[in-house]
């Protein structure tokens, strides 16, 4: 009995001391990080972002930009300006330090992806699933508002210096003639600038974003019944998904593919 007690104390001591040792490890801020083709996706305090290592350009999936479309046509952001100013929302990337350790180790072996949870008036969970160079960014709005919700608008930010164009040859960002000539020279692409409005419905289901300062090209794809828009005023791609009534939560998806050049992107058609 005495020996049993001694054994129990010793084994417990080993477990406790080992656990304390492990608890003290240092981890990078943004774990997990998941490669998506030439780019990476990770969680930050404002949401999920797609970026390329060493280059300060971020393509964001933020609840401050995503919006609810109400029955009367009005739009409100998932997290509103009032909530931001009053700091009355909560952003959660990890539930605990142990979860962070677990995710870090799993992500090293490609078994974890970033998530971000935002709790304000609405609770939104962002997560990703990745297969090679293809990524789906899911957002779950729970609970879905009972009445008056017409749809949800998901957004991806872009830069005014980006080439944003579709496969029908429409260019949605203003580029110099010199840059357009280089685009034709390097990749044989010659889109025409859309002018006159600030928000355009993309005729097809795909949109290309080429940032001249990163070595990657993004294709954003919508699926039926989503609508794909480009908002030049806010520099966002907007993917609107109609609501389904009677559901407890609203799941919407954005599909993004990453290629190393426009030629590769065009071949994907």
């Amino acid at each position, binding site marked *: 009995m005495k*020996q049993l007690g*001694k*054994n129990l104390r*010793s*084994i417990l*001591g*080993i*477990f406790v*001391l*080992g*656990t*304390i*040792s*492990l*608890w*003290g*490890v*240092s*981890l*990078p801020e943004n*774990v997990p*990080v998941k*490669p998506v*083709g*030439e780019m*990476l996706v990770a969680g930050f305090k404002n949401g999920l972002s797609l970026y390329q*290592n*060493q*280059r300060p350009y971020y393509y964001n999936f933020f609840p401050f930009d995503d919006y609810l479309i109400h029955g009367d046509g009005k739009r409100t952001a998932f997290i509103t300006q009032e909530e931001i100013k009053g700091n009355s929302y909560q952003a959660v990337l990890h539930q605990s330090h142990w979860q962070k*350790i677990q995710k*870090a*180790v799993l*992500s*090293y*072996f490609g078994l974890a992806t970033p998530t971000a949870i935002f709790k304000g008036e609405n609770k939104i969970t962002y997560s990703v699933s990745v297969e090679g160079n293809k990524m789906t960014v899911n957002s779950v709005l729970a609970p879905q508002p009972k009445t008056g919700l017409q749809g949800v608008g998901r957004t991806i930010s872009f830069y005014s210096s980006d080439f944003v164009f579709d496969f029908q040859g429409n260019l949605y960002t203003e580029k110099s003639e010199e840059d357009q000539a*280089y*685009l034709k*020279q*390097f990749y044989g692409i010659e889109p025409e600038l859309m002018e006159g409005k600030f928000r355009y419905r993309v005729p097809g289901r795909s949109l290309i974003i*080429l*940032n*001249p*300062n*990163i*070595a990657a090209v993004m294709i954003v794809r919508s699926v039926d019944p989503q609508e794909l828009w480009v908002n030049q005023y806010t520099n966002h791609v907007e993917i609107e998904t109609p609501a389904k009534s009677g559901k407890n939560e609203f799941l919407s998806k954005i599909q993004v593919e990453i290629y*190393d*050049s426009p030629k590769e992107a065009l071949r994907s058609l």
Partner: protein
Amino acid sequence: MIQLSSILSCLALFVIPIFVGRAVWMILKKRTSISFPWLTYFILGSLTIFGWALISQYLLLKLFPGSNFVFLLKGGVFGCFLLSLGINGKFWRKNFRFRLRNSPWEIVWFLGLAALIFGLWRWRSPYPLNWDFLEHQALVNTILKGRYSFVTSRISDTFIFNGYSSFFHTLLATVQAIFPPKVLDFWLAISFCHLFLVILASWIFAEQISQDKTIAFFSSLLGGLIFESVTFTSLFFMPQTFTAVIFIFLFTQMIRGAQAENLPPSWLLGISCLFLFLIHYVIGFLAALILAGTYLYITLRDHPAAKIGFGLLKIMVILLLILGLVSPLINLNFLNQGEAKFYNFNLAKKLFLFQRAYGLSLIVFVPLGIKEILSRRKKEEFLVIVIGGIIFILVLTNLPYMFKFYVLGRFFIHLVMAVGMGALVSRLNSRSLRMLGMSFLAVTFGLIFTTNTIYWKEILYYQSLLTHLSGNEVKAAEFLINKYGQKSVLLLSDPATQGIFEAISGFNTQGGVYANLSTRKEVDIKTFFENPDLFSRELNGVYDRFEVNPTNRFLILSGRYFLWAKRPIEEKNALYFNLWTPADLTFEDYKVGYQMVTSRPDLFELIYLNPTLMILKVKSSFTL
């Protein structure tokens, strides 16, 4: 798969000196029995090879000016090796069954642990992660072209500070001359061998001191799974880590000799100290001091004058503590052309580095280990606390490069921790419970190692890999070798790209990763936008004291280069700053290259292009 010639080259680094050293031992008619004889043979053999290289360079080439240094080195050493087979023939036939002190299960443990750690470390990293291998391989490449000296900075301008002799590189150059490897494969193979030796050394050291296999198990576990920044002991093969491994084997040899009342002779100690010093002056000097001090302690501890020695030791410890307290007031950041500033860590930074490598296990197990050692009252273990403690105080002082001494200290600290862990496990009275406890701690340290690896490799993302080099850079180097292999070439780019290409292509750059300020200014692309002719003149004016008039100058415009060009001037000029990760070319980068080649074909010609870089030939004609 690693190429066979690379594996042979790696194994030859140990086998050839051991054979040659044994032959030297026989010639010197040394019949003295020593423990770890292979260690002594290795040291003697390595020094013989180095001696032969120096004789070739400073004597034979002067007597026979038309001779080729590499031929003399390769031929001489291989000849010695063949001769040694004859001299040692009887010995090896008699001792054909290699008598291992360790049981087969222990060997399986060492190899298995090394394989597991190496696999974890190399996950998603196809190329060596030891950035320093670039400069060491660059020096080896230059030796293999026939330029040689005792002083490293006289061989290559990549070495601006002579922290060691060319001993380490001579050994590498010798085996690479005899068995030409694929460079990247060689460094992967030698890294694995080094890790194996660190694990083996940690086990043997702990077993000799404590006479306890459980403690040896934990020491070997820590030896392999703890990876510290700055010292890089377990996973990077370089002069400071090589010194540390040999030192621990020597220390163990001495302790074993003392316990058997058969200390190695003092002349052998002297040669060993010389070996350590030549591999790395500073680390080797401290290692030699510890060996010599331990030797004196063992031989004179019963001598009446020993009290004076112990008194001096106490004074030294007090002085070290005072040094530690006043060190923030001493400014040595100017050392090594200002690089020292980057290696001068304050206490908080040092504690953070320890936390990254150990989690909280240092705080948890060191006090346990000290308490256990004090209660066991074993002289050798107490010696470990004293030496480990002195090195730890040195490490914590606020002076540049002090953290590097931990490369020696970690073996002692790990032994103390292992004693603490062993004490916990030994209280369990059933074998299966002890196995459970040991397994739990093994998994814990495995996870600590994994999180440390994640932190260390965090900045190295390139597509889905975690790497310093890209496949496209390797392909570009192969293109240059195939097309310009025998020609005179000077490569120009940002320091990181220069360092990489100098190592993997064998072509020269000005300074590699340590390009001087003048070169950094001359290769900066912003000059092209201001004045293309001036840019061309500056590129043609990059002065390399070893390649004064190269026939070909190639400018490598890599994604890394363009990122470097956008950095603030302080970072561009800093020796400590590098772009550690590959980067592919962007649309804007392609534009620049295209402009250079199409607007000024008289100055630049595109000779190679892939998604990561373009190589331009810099034409030498310009109007005055």
